[in-house]
């Protein structure tokens, strides 16, 4: 019913919307999500014909190109064929008229009706959105935020339009009101086409069947809402979801580095993207269909960095790892959980070439690994016991600089600068005094940070962390894991976290793989694996952790009363 083709909107400067293609059918709801400034509202206003800037391209509605129409005709369509529920700000309603009067006026603009009949219809509409009697006749300033939002919705429905554009319909509402309004809208838009513009992902998820992600005026990803949320393919989508406080998400909130810039050549997201290549700077990616999903990314979306395919490792008759399959994507944390002796560490050591891999293959960025020196520039490992993995004969400078030494990177001065920078990054001092310290002069947490700094000094894309915090106490553990997540956010580091602690995995990982007797028995998004484990062993692991939880509330407080 609505088809947008190659829409560009500019306010004179760089385009706010560029090359947007969208389709919307009757009975369908499409969410447009993105951070503020992405061009969401401009897109909605553009469809309504209310945008002040210049629009080019096509907006076909009911078979006719809106952009080719005369303004008069468009005005007549507004409110009657398409309506917009404006963002609930203080001046969205006229302060001098009651909600009822404003809706009556909206009806009378488009229909020849008796004032009484219009009033009757307006009251019906307000009742439908839950405003009755005195509330309906109140002035905007007498209404609560939720009530004003209801009034705005009623007003948009005044002439029963076929297309409804909702701009942040639930912004600045409390959670309960938000729930009510969302349910209300869901009932109202069933037979209409609805464009839901929001940065509130949970509202979008409840209202819509499809979702388009807008960034820098371009659609970077579009697909069925449920699939897009469960498996974001564009780095920006993932960043957006990670920074949104979902109830189902278990990982700590993470942001997206940098901030949105306008008029960026090439891919609009490339300045903030952690997997950009040269091409991203030069050319704008075209959205390409990929399994029912449109993704605009030169790299085809989030790239799989490390692929382990049916890997088996045997020590004589002992099969430590059996046909393990793991894919680690750019910028994500995959937790490998299992009992000790289940083959987790062996798997990691096989990837690092410390034990010979038996059958199967290990691929890095699509290429088979050959144990060359370059592999280790991209993949690094943090070992379980920092006291042992950092040679006691090396001071901090020598230890952290060792990978540079081995790889022959830089001269003495450059190395020193790199070492200092990476020490800053892991929040360790980088003064000369600290550089000359030996491991035994540092605390356990500090030595592990040195080990992490050493693993990061080559700026790898993949970090394999084998129980990096099992030797440390909880407060130090928390700091170190936060540090890793921060670095992940900044650099797009992919982390394979090996741990026996599923509660820890819950807080830091996007996905969890469970290993039992050398096999991966379950793998999935962290939230799903923990809330509805499928394999018996996973269930046991989760139950074991749950039973260790401290009681949250005393059962009853009556006994404490006199």
């Amino acid at each position, binding site marked *: 019913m609505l088809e947008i083709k190659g829409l560009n909107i500019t306010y004179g400067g760089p385009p706010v919307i560029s090359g947007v293609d969208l389709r919307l059918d009757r009975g369908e709801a499409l969410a447009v999500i993105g951070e503020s400034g992405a061009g969401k509202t401009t897109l909605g206003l553009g469809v309504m014909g209310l945008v002040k800037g210049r629009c080019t391209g096509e907006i076909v509605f009911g078979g006719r190109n809106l952009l080719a129409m005369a303004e008069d005709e468009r005005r007549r369509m507004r409110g009657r064929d398409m309506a917009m529920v404006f963002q609930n700000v203080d001046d969205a309603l006229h302060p001098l008229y009651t909600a009822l009067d404003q809706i009556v006026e909206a009806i009378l603009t488009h229909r020849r009706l008796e004032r009484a009949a219009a009033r009757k219809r307006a009251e019906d509409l307000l009742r439908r959105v839950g405003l009755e009697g005195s509330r309906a006749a109140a002035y905007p300033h007498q209404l609560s935020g939720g009530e004003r939002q209801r009034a705005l919705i009623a007003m948009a429905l005044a002439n029963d339009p076929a297309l409804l554009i909702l701009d942040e319909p639930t912004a600045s509402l409390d959670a309960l009101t938000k729930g009510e309004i969302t349910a209300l809208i869901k009932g109202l838009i069933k037979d209409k086409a609805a464009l839901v513009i929001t940065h509130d992902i949970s509202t979008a998820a409840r209202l819509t069947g499809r979702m388009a992600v807008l960034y820098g005026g371009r659609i970077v990803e579009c697909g069925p809402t449920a699939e897009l949320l469960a498996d974001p393919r564009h780095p920006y989508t993932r960043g957006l979801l990670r920074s949104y406080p979902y109830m189902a998400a278990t990982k700590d909130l993470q942001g997206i580095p940098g901030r949105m810039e306008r008029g960026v050549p090439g891919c609009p997201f490339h300045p903030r993207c952690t997997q950009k290549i040269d091409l991203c700077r030069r050319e704008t990616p075209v959205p390409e269909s990929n399994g029912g999903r449109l993704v605009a990314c030169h790299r085809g979306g989030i790239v799989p960095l490390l692929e382990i395919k049916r890997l088996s490792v045997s020590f004589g008759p002992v099969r430590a790892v059996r046909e393990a399959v793991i894919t680690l994507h750019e910028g994500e944390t995959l937790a490998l959980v299992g009992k000790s002796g289940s083959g987790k560490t062996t798997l990691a050591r096989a990837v690092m070439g410390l034990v010979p891999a038996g059958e199967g293959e290990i691929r890095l960025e699509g290429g088979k690994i050959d144990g060359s020196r370059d592999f280790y520039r991209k993949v690094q490992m943090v*070992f379980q016991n920092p006291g042992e*993995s950092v040679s006691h004969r090396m001071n901090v400078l020598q230890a952290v600089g060792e990978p540079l030494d081995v790889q022959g990177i830089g001269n003495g001065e450059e190395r020193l600068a790199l070492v200092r920078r990476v020490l800053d990054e892991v929040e360790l001092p980088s003064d000369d005094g600290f550089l000359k310290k030996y491991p035994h002069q540092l605390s356990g947490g500090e030595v592990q940070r040195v080990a992490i700094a050493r693993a990061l000094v080559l700026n790898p894309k993949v970090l394999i962390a084998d129980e990096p915090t099992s030797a440390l106490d909880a407060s130090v553990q928390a700091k170190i894991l936060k540090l890793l997540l921060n670095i992940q956010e900044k650099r797009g580091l992919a982390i394979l976290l090996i741990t026996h602690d599923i509660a820890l995995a819950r807080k830091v990982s996007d996905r969890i793989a469970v290993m039992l007797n050398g096999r991966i028995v379950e793998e999935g998004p962290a939230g799903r694996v923990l809330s509805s484990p499928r394999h018996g062993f996973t269930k046991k692991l989760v139950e074991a952790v749950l039973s260790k939880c401290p009681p949250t509330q005393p059962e009853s407080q009556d006994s404490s009363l006199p």
Partner: protein
Amino acid sequence: MHIDYWREVKKSGPGRAGLAAITAVAALAVLAPLFTGHQPGEYTGAIFHPPSREYWLGTNDVGQDIWTHLLYGARTSLAVGCGAAALSAIVSALVGGLAALSGGITDRVLMRLTDSLLVVPPIMVAILAAAYFRPGAALLVFLLAAVMWPGGARLVRSQALAAKERAHVAAARTFGAGRLYLLTRHIMPEIGPVIIAVLVMDARRAVFMEAGLSFLGVADPAVVSWGKMMQQALRFSYLDVWKWWLLPAGAALSLTVAGLAFTGFALETVLNPRLKERDR
């Protein structure tokens, strides 16, 4: 675990005593011309002269100054001891290190060779070979090294095997380090103290064997040596000369060997902390 081996050795009683003894002997050997006005081969004109201000330990049957012999004998002892020990330790380190790092067939061949040499009593081989070659100091060094290296090689191999499995070596491998880098930067520093211990023990055996061979008279007769002094002194045991000829030579040998042994024990204690626990 970071241990300053040098400081630990200096801290232990036997270590200090041993180091003092070796230092004293070495100082006498190096500065020999300052402590005597004679040459070892020089005829002084007095035969069997008892100790006096001119001849501190008297003279021997052919009128040579015994004190001078003692000083120059220390040179031979230490030179042969250190030389043989160094050579033997190098061979031990090479064979042991190569076996440990290479593994597989190289390891097996080298270790079977080592084992077969270990079962041959070194003193027997040394005597037979010396009797045949009549070795001078240089040849003696090679001969002694040849019979001494297998024990050290075994020790180095076991230590290198353990060092190879240490996490920091694994870590270095994950930076892309090659074998040579691992050997020079990680494994050698790790087993360095062990090699030094091997060196000291080898030196003790070498000093002792050198003395033994010259006492038996199978070494080059032209070399001044404590062993030969004792052998010659014994022929005149019916005279009083043994007091200032035989005894000082024996004492000097004992002092040197004991010094090296004490240092070695101290090192061993430091390297193996379990021995330290037992001492307390």
